[in-house]
């Protein structure tokens, strides 16, 4: 390679602030990657929201033809896939990236370039998945793509292949990030911060990484088997050749249920950080929260068939999975009670993050209870695959994760961008969102129990669903308005001065001990921790207040160089799966070229100057 600017000795920490596209393309700073994750995820969240609005408009009237059946089926599939894989997971990843190093007192994640690689693979995976719209072949078999509708015979087009390959690419991104964060949390904690002194958000993220590490390989294999069925004529899920479509459901939900815990545990972590700060008292029952999280993760692998009670697996299997599902409701209940215990006897400060956190508890309780209602198979036979289930998972995913992530956004906005989001607009956003959310999803409980199945692009008038569907559509428009208010809040704030304090909320964790936004090296001196809520301890020692921290020069701090090889390797990874998708037309050549690019990117990454100690130790190599 031509010697580029990167070849000079490793960048001193004190050089000028890097801006411009190139600095973003080659960043390895966990904070910038966090902001990239956040911006991309929010864009996909809005995309998913628009898909939801179109779905709601189509369902506003019986026998409506606002959109064609195929478009509706593509929209509901992409709404599900986008919201789960391209919105909630990366929004959680934004918080992982930005906050975990700050909260555990580290200067960066364990493998900064692997972190950049994860982001770029996620971005390319998301674009690849959504590119299917350009070819009019967006996935249309639902976010869990049950076999054998996904077989070549019943889904001849590339729709399912886009979904299959897209999820494989996103799987690579999630696995790479999971290894990175697992090692970061285990290995890079500040001196004195034992595992039982870590902030609860870091604990929940830690469990989420373990779930990711164990669940994603299962879906990767399931998708590989589906790929073999569609491209190479095997019959894993095709009954004609001896295969069984039910096997796909098993494989998918062995991944599927840990996946829904991957979606909710980061939200648990955010709420466990916000509530103590705005109740001005420590989290209630720290150990109970940790063990219930671990219990949820371990048992999460033993409940998957509660998604399959209607397949007639037989009484023994139904009983086992029903009881294990009920068992997992207990630690979830313990968490809710511990949050309420945190608020009890507290001095509650109702700032915007607190609004969303408390609403999270209220909505998640409803979602949890409607979940327990279909943990019992006889009841689930009526509820499964109806709008009752749609109501349940929106109460836990929207009422749960999105409310909590919004609380996190308002709470950590000053730390990430140095500006406080406007409180008044925040409250308007909250009320619109709470009202819109309940108007949209509460009637779904009733319309579901009264006979409206899931994923139907329309319904006849005589079944009586019209009135409730109209309320739901009105509610969804209100939700759209709510996020418009949030956007206005963001834009107005970004024009304002960067005047946020380092610790605007009297926080307890380490990220509030450094300036907002923190310098590239985070901590001038790595802090020593000797208890939970380190900042509150520090403040008690200094009479309740701490001086505004100064950024410091960061001299002598070794910072990793920016590098573009993660981006090149990410393009290689995505190209491999594009090559597979196009293999019927291009033959093996697409894959061969992609693998070559991948290897080129990987080797250049591994032996990059200034990084790898394989080079004879020049100045930059230490």
């Amino acid at each position: 390679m031509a010697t580029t600017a990167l070849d000079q000795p490793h960048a001193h920490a004190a050089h000028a602030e890097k801006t411009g596209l190139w600095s973003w393309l080659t960043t390895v700073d966990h904070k910038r990657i966090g902001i990239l994750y956040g911006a991309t995820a929010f864009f996909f969240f809005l995309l998913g929201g628009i898909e939801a609005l179109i779905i709601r408009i189509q369902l506003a009237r019986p026998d409506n033809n606002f959109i064609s059946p195929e478009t509706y089926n593509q929209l509901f599939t992409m709404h599900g896939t986008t919201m789960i894989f391209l919105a909630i997971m990366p929004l959680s990843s934004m918080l992982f990236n930005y906050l975990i190093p700050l909260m555990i007192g580290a200067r960066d994640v364990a493998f900064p370039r692997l972190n950049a690689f994860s982001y770029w693979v996620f971005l390319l995976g998301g674009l690849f998945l959504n590119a299917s719209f350009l070819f009019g072949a967006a996935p249309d078999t639902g976010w869990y793509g049950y076999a054998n509708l996904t077989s070549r015979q019943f889904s001849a087009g590339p729709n399912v292949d886009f979904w299959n390959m897209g999820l494989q690419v996103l799987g690579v991104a999630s696995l790479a990030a999971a290894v990175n964060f697992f090692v970061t949390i285990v290995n890079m904690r500040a001196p004195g911060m034992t595992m039982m002194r870590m902030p609860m958000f870091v604990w929940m993220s830690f469990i989420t990484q373990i779930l990711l590490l164990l669940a994603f390989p299962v879906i990767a294999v399931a998708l590989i088997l589906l790929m073999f069925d569609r491209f190479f004529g095997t019959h894993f899920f095709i009954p004609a050749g001896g295969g069984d479509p039910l096997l796909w459901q098993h494989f998918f939900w062995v991944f599927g249920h840990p996946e829904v815990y991957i979606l909710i545990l980061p939200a648990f972590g955010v709420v466990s950080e916000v509530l103590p700060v705005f109740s001005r008292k420590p989290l209630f029952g720290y150990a109970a929260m940790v063990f219930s999280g671990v219990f949820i993760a371990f048992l999460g692998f033993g409940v998957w068939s509660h998604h399959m009670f209607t397949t007639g697996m037989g009484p023994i299997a139904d009983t086992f999975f029903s009881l294990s599902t009920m068992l997992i409701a207990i630690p979830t209940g313990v968490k809710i009670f511990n949050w309420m215990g945190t608020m009890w006897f507290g001095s509650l400060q109702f700032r915007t993050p607190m609004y969303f956190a408390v609403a999270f508890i209220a909505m998640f309780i409803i979602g949890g209870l409607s979940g327990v209602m279909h943990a019992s198979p006889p009841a689930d036979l009526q509820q499964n695959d109806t709008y009752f289930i749609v109501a349940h998972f929106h109460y836990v995913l929207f009422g749960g994760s999105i409310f909590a992530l919004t609380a996190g956004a308002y709470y950590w906005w000053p730390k990430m961008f140095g500006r406080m989001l406007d409180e008044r607009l925040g409250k308007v956003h909250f009320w619109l969102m709470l009202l819109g959310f309940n108007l949209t999803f509460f009637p779904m409980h009733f319309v579901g129990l009264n006979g409206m199945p899931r994923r139907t692009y329309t319904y006849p008038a005589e079944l009586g669903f019209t009135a409730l569907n109209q309320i739901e559509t009105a509610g969804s428009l209100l939700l759209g308005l709510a996020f418009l208010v949030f956007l206005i809040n963001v834009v107005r704030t970004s024009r304002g001065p960067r005047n946020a304090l380092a610790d605007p909320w009297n926080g307890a964790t380490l990220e509030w001990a450094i300036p907002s936004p923190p310098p590239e090296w985070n901590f001038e001196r790595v802090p020593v921790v000797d208890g939970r809520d380190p900042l509150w301890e520090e403040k008690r020692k200094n009479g309740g207040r701490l001086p505004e921290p100064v950024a410091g020069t960061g001299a002598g701090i070794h910072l990793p160089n920016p590098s573009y090889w993660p981006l090149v390797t990410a393009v290689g990874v995505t190209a491999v799966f594009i090559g597979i998708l196009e293999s019927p037309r291009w033959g093996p050549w697409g894959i061969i070229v992609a693998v070559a690019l991948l290897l080129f990117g990987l080797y250049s990454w591994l032996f990059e100057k200034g990084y790898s100690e394989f080079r004879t130790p020049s100045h930059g190599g230490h």
Partner: protein
Amino acid sequence: MHPRTTAARRRAGAPFLCALAVALAGCSPERYPQTALLPLSDFARIGDHVQDQTFYWALGVFVLVEGALLYSIFRFRGRPEDPEPSQIHGNTTIEIIWTLIPALILAAIAVPTVKGIFETNAIPKGAMVIEVIGHQWWWEFRYPEANITTANEMFIPAGRTVELKINSGDVVHSFWPPRFAGKRDVFPGRETRLWWKADSTGLYPGQCAEYCGIQHARMAFHVRSVTPQDFEAWIGHMKAKGPPKPPAAAAPAAGGSLRTASAGAKVQGARDSAAAGAPAQGAEYAAGEKLFMTKGCMGCHSLQAVGAPKGLIGPNLANVGSRSHIAAGWLPNTDENLERWIREPQSVKKGVLMPNLGVTVEEARALRAYLRAHQ
């Protein structure tokens, strides 16, 4: 949920309350023919009983826990300048209490659940077997003892247990007659079972509940529960619809005796088909019969209820004239709808396997007359 000022609370409460009122009014089950909350069979009552149990426990927990949350919101509200509250870290006894109580509640739910699981999985002996075959986007029903095939409208004798042997002809569906039983997934290559004993008569809708392709939304069916005598009459009536006698013989123009206006109408006795006089629209009927051959309808549809060939793409039309709905149980079976459905199926149900055959308006009227005669 917790606005600062009382005025704000009243203002914010108003829209919420009236929306709630509308929602509550909108959700009383009587207004929904396909509701799962008004069981009409023993199977459905098991599920309904278990669901009630879990619902009341859930409602109780909801009221207590959300109430505690609301209480704590107002009781412990503070201002920044208030003194710091006591820094409680936890309390093991409370932790144990709020682990045990949910465990006990769940145990209380688990008992009826497990009992319900085994009850719903134990198929009573001596039930009448009906074969249900799911196809992409319609339902086929076969009565093996009587060797009768019909589609989209299942006749069942009230007061007698029916056992459904469910298979699929293509992809995974889910057979869901909410008034009589929960849903059972329909697998190609793996037979699943469902059973119930209806305890009242009437026409009740049901729908496919597992996404199965473009027209999953319009893959509905009806279950017509009739008295045992009417059921025997219906079987007799359908048995008369054997293989077509050579065209020279009198067309098996069965009378329109079974016309049923709306849900719950009684089924009159069937008349012997051969004795039926030529129906009033003889000319149209004959034209329709000829068109049924020339337009190729025979290729996918069969008109004989007894011994119909298996594996046809289209539904059996032996008694299509008397069905309450057409196009798989959702389009009301009026003459105008039947004609439109024959003339341009792709615009009525896009993506359905029945192509537009370029049928003119007159031809459609003749075909409609011919099919209407098949009661």
